[in-house]
């Protein structure tokens, strides 16, 4: 059952990821990307990380994708020729390197011996994660909020420049 789930999720994730980087139109990219996000969320469910799966859906599938779509719609793509297509030379060189890397990494992981300290994850993922997040990792959590704040300020400044321009 797990294996089946993995095969389904994995194949969807791989196909949609490749689709996202290979299709031409930005809107089509976003569609493939949405599929990719959903498959990743599914893999989180499969790995019993319920909260992360939910966050993945909320943040990526709703917020980020919508944000992308909004930006894409404001740009007149038919005028921009320079962003079309691929770098041919790089494609030719990168393809072998890509396969080589994938091969080595997968070889590595396949042969690796994972840690033996098998523990079961807590049943209630949300409360366990929340407990850890607000006790042990309170500083990274606060820092993350700070990063978000700075990003917000940065985005506002960029937007303001545009308005002035």
């Amino acid at each position, binding site marked *: 059952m797990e294996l089946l789930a993995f095969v389904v999720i994995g194949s969807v994730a791989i196909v949609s990821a490749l689709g996202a980087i290979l299709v031409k139109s930005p809107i089509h990219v976003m569609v493939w990307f949405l599929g990719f996000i959903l498959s990743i969320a599914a893999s989180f469910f499969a790995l019993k990380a319920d909260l992360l799966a939910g966050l993945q859906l909320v943040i990526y599938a709703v917020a980020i994708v919508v944000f992308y779509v909004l930006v894409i719609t404001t740009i007149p793509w038919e005028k921009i020729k320079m962003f079309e297509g691929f770098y041919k030379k790089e494609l030719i060189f990168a393809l072998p*390197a890509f396969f*080589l*890397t994938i091969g080595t*990494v997968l*070889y590595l992981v396949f042969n690796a011996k994972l840690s033996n300290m098998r523990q079961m994850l807590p049943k209630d993922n949300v409360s366990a994660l929340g407990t850890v997040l607000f006790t042990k990792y309170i500083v990274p959590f606060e820092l993350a909020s700070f990063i978000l704040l700075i990003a917000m300020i940065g985005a506002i400044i960029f937007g303001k420049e545009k308005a002035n321009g």
Partner: protein
Amino acid sequence: MPTLILLFPLLSFITIGLFGRRLGDFTSGLINAVAGILSFIAALITMLNLKAPEDIILYKFLPVSHTSIDIGIYVDRLSISTTLTVTFVASVIFVYAIGYMRYLFGNWTFKFFAYFSLFLFSMLLILLGDSLILMFFGWEGVGLASYLLIGYFHEEKFATKASLEAFVMNRIGDWSFILGIIYTFWLFGTLSLPKLFENASYIPGITLATLLLFGGAVGKSGQLPLHTWLPNAMAGPTPVSALLHAATMVAAGVYMVARLYPLFSLSHTTLSYITITGVITMVFAALVATVHDDIKKIIAFSTMSQLAIMFTALGMGFPTAAMFHLTTHAFFKALLFLAAGAVITGLHHHTQNIFEMGGLKKYMPITFGAFMIGALALSGFPPFAGYFSKDAIVSSIMDKSSLVATMILFTSMLTAYYITREAFVVFLGQGHYHEEPHEVESIMTLPMLILSFLSLVGGFLLWSYFTYMNSPIEPPSSFIIHSIYGIIVAVVGISLSYLLYVKKIIDPNTLYELFKPIHSFVKSQFYTEYIYHNIFAKGYLAISRLVYKIVDRILIDGFVNGVAKLFMLLVRFVWEFIDIRFIDIIIHKLVIWTFSFGRKMRIIQSGYLNQYIFVVLIGIVVILGLIIKGMRL
């Protein structure tokens, strides 16, 4: 509370030194005087509360294994009684200084008061420091402050010279002192005074150590052979002289020997050296004082002589008598200097030669009275303070060595002669002035009155002082009988000068013509000053010049110039044959090659992000490959 004694002058120094310009000169003087008085009050309270010797450690400095150089305050009966005297006399002089320096206000006079505070602080550090190293700090601070104050009129050549001389002479003494401290540390393994007193026992090297320490006292107290700075230090303003001679600087030497008396008393050799130095210096200084004509220098030589008497008492083993004489001496010597300063002020700073004065009695009655009291106290005339303290020394020494006692009596006779001579010449007789002399203002007379009172009655403290110091003293009745010689020599000295300078039985000028060679011989301080200045200092300069000409100019410069010429030849050769023919061509080629290489390499720097990332990917592949190669799968 003992810390406060030190703190007030330090605070005053910092305040005046930093903000004196804003505060104004009068306020600075006031702060200075108030600090002195507060310090005196703190000393008084400390003295009243003192039960047993106390060592208050403020800070442990440089702790090395189990020893450390502690910075602390050591309070016992000796140090606190001396502190009391010093702070009292200093406060009185500080008040007086406000009046004396009045004519210089507006010319950065606050500096003067700042130096005064520094002077007092350093002196208190000597008095209260609980280790030799702290004492040495105070010692140097006193030297620095005296240098600054003696050279206070730094626009005048003789003042700067005098300050430099004082500094150099003191340096010789300080050099000896610090060697003594180092040697003491080597012998006892500690510099802390209480520990030194505990461990004081005869060790073979102690004679050398105490002699070296005594060398410091010689420099600081102006004893032979390091004496020439003391009369020349009169170049400073009169309150400086008073402070220097009465309370702070010169007393430091005597106090140091008395403070370290447990060590000094262990070595009979050192004690006899101290005695010999004292005896020679007191006769020497008294003789010089009889012929001098500067109002302040006579008093300066008398200081030298009196300090020598104290050293003699120390050498003969009577530290308490010496310290008591130091106390009374502080009173009447300060009084004499203040009166002399008042005379100079009254004469509008025109002259300091006593033979250009005369008949000042009717212009300055208070100053006259004060000076007379000081003079009689210095002469040892009963019942003034000097009588008790000097005759305590004489009567003690009489039992031990009648020769030394006779020398002291002889010195006392000379003292009585020269100081009353000065008093008679300045205040009696006739004088002609362009400007009418005037009595000084009350801020200057008040300190003189206070000191007059103490010079008058201070001697009666003799018995209570000795009891306080737990030292034996004969009862008053036998003391008076013993002191009969002292009274006789004082009367002889005073009547001699009275007959010569008031009655003029023999005209002093005839005598002067008669004994002119001896007079000038004595006046030149037995040629010591001449020898120091012309033979030592000038000889040193001549040798330096000779060495400079021969060794520096001819040998060293010639060598350096020759080397330089040779080097130039070599360099020219290298330049012509190696530089131009080989290196330049190689560098040129290198530049051209680098340039073309750079042009070729520019292709790599495309500026495209994806190409860079591609390189990163290649890097990842390589690193992963390495990991796999090193992995044990």
